[in-house]
C-alpha cells in the first residue's frame, strides 16, 4: 500500500482506530451519521409532517388473513364482553332493570319469531364469549412461546374458530 493511501486511511479513522488494541471505545463516528438514532427519528417525523407526502394505504388494501382477522375479533369480542359485564353489573344495581331483561326474553320466546331466529339471537350472545375464551387460551399458550410457527398459528386458529362455534351452539341448545 502506498504511503499516501496509508496516511489517508489513518486520517479517515480519526482518533479512535479500531486496529489499535488500546482503544476500547466503540467506534461510533459513522461516515454518514446525522446525529443519534433518536435525532434521526425526530427529523423523520418533522420532515414528513411538513411535506405533503401521502400515507400509503393500509387497512383498505391489506389482505384479510386468519392471523389479523382472529386478532381483531379477539379484541372486538373482548370489548363486547366488557360491555356485557358492565350491563350485568348495572342490572344488579338499577332497580327494575333485571325484570325488564327477563320480560324482554320472555316476550321474544312467546313471539312469532321462529326457533331458528331465536337460536341465532342466542348464538350472537354466546359466541363472543366462547370465541374470546378459546382464543384467550391460544394467547396464553403463545405467551410461553410455543405454537408460534406459521403452520401452528393457522391450525390452532381454525381449531379455535371451529370449537368456539361448537361450544356456542352447545350452550345455546343445552341451556334452555
Amino acid at each position, binding site marked *: 500500500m502506498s504511503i499516501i493511501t496509508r496516511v489517508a486511511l489513518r486520517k479517515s479513522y480519526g482518533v479512535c482506530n479500531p486496529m489499535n488494541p488500546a482503544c476500547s471505545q466503540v467506534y461510533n463516528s459513522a461516515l454518514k451519521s446525522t446525529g443519534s438514532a433518536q435525532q434521526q427519528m425526530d427529523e423523520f417525523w418533522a420532515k414528513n409532517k411538513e411535506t405533503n407526502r*401521502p400515507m400509503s394505504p393500509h387497512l383498505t388494501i391489506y389482505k384479510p388473513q386468519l392471523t389479523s382477522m382472529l386478532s381483531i375479533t379477539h379484541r372486538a369480542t373482548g370489548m363486547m364482553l366488557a360491555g356485557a359485564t358492565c350491563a350485568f353489573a348495572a342490572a344488579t344495581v338499577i332497580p327494575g332493570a333485571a325484570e325488564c331483561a327477563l320480560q324482554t326474553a320472555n316476550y321474544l320466546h312467546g313471539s312469532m319469531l321462529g326457533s331458528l331466529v331465536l337460536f341465532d339471537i342466542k348464538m350472537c350472545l354466546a359466541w363472543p364469549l366462547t370465541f374470546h375464551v378459546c382464543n384467550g387460551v391460544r394467547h396464553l399458550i403463545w405467551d410461553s412461546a410455543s405454537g408460534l410457527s406459521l403452520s401452528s398459528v393457522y391450525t390452532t386458529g381454525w381449531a379455535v374458530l371451529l370449537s368456539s362455534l361448537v361450544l356456542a351452539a352447545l350452550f345455546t341448545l343445552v341451556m334452555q
Partner: protein
Amino acid sequence: MSSGLRISRTVLRSSSPVLSLLTTQTLRCSATAAAQTTEQNQRLKTFSIYRWNPEAEGDMKLPVMHKYQVDLNDCGPMVLDALIKIKNEQDPTLTFRRSCREGICGSCAMNIGGTNTLACLARIDTNLSKKTKIYPLPHMYVVKDLVPDMNNFYAQYRSIEPFLKQKDASKLGKENFQSVADRQKLDGLYECILCACCSTSCPSYWWSSDKYLGPAVLMQAYRWIIDSRDEYQKERLDRMNDPFSLYKCHTIMNCTKACPKGLNPGLAIAELKKMLASHNSAEVASPKPAAQ
C-alpha cells in the same frame, strides 16, 4: 429477432420437458416468421399500480391507481419483471426500488395482491381475468410511486445497536469462540434482510411506528441479545423496558405470515417477552444498588 428467442425461452420454462423439444423447433421457426405477436397470441395481464408524483400540480396531487397491461408471453415470471417491462416499454416515470432481483437485498419490498412481499420473488398470477394490485408498503410516507420513506425504520434499527459489544477490553483483537450450539441459536435470525415486509404488515406498527420498534427490529434486538459473544445482554433488555418498544406487540402474527424469507419474528418477540419477564422479576427479587 432477439425478442422472438426470448419468447421461446419463457414458454419453455412453463412447458413440460417432453414438449420442450417440440416447442423449441416450432417456436424458432415462428419467431423468425412472425416478428411481432398477433393480438390472439398475447396473454395480457392487468396491473393496477399506485402512483403519486411529489411534483404533481392541481388535480394530479392525489395518489391514483394506474392500469397497465403486460403480455405475459414476453415477460419474466416475477412481478419485478413486469414492473421493469412497464418502465422500459410503457411508462418510464414508474418509480420503484430494486437491486439484486433474487430476494436477498430487500429493496423491492412492496404490497402485491394485498400482502407484503419482494417483487422479485412474487410470481405473477397468470389468471388473466384478475388484475394484480400493487401498492407501496402500508402506512409509510410515500416519496414517489412505490418508494416509501424508510428512514424511521433504519433509525429504529440503529437504536438497538446491532453490533457486537463487549465489556472485557482484553478480548479486543482476539477471536471470539462460539460453540456450535450457541451459533445454532442465531439460525433463523441472522438471515433477515431488513426488507420491512413484516413491520409494515403489523397493524400495531401502523398505529405506533413512532414508539413501537416493529417485528424486524425486535427480531434483530433478540439476535444480539442471545448472541453468546455479546456482553451487554442486560442493557439491551433494559432498552425494551417501556410500554411501547416491545409491548405494543399483541401477537397478531401478520409478521411471520408476511416474511418473504420464511423467518419468524413473532416467535422471536415472544422469546424476548419471556426474557424480559424473567429479567424484570430477577431485578425485583434482588435489586442492585444504584450505580456510582
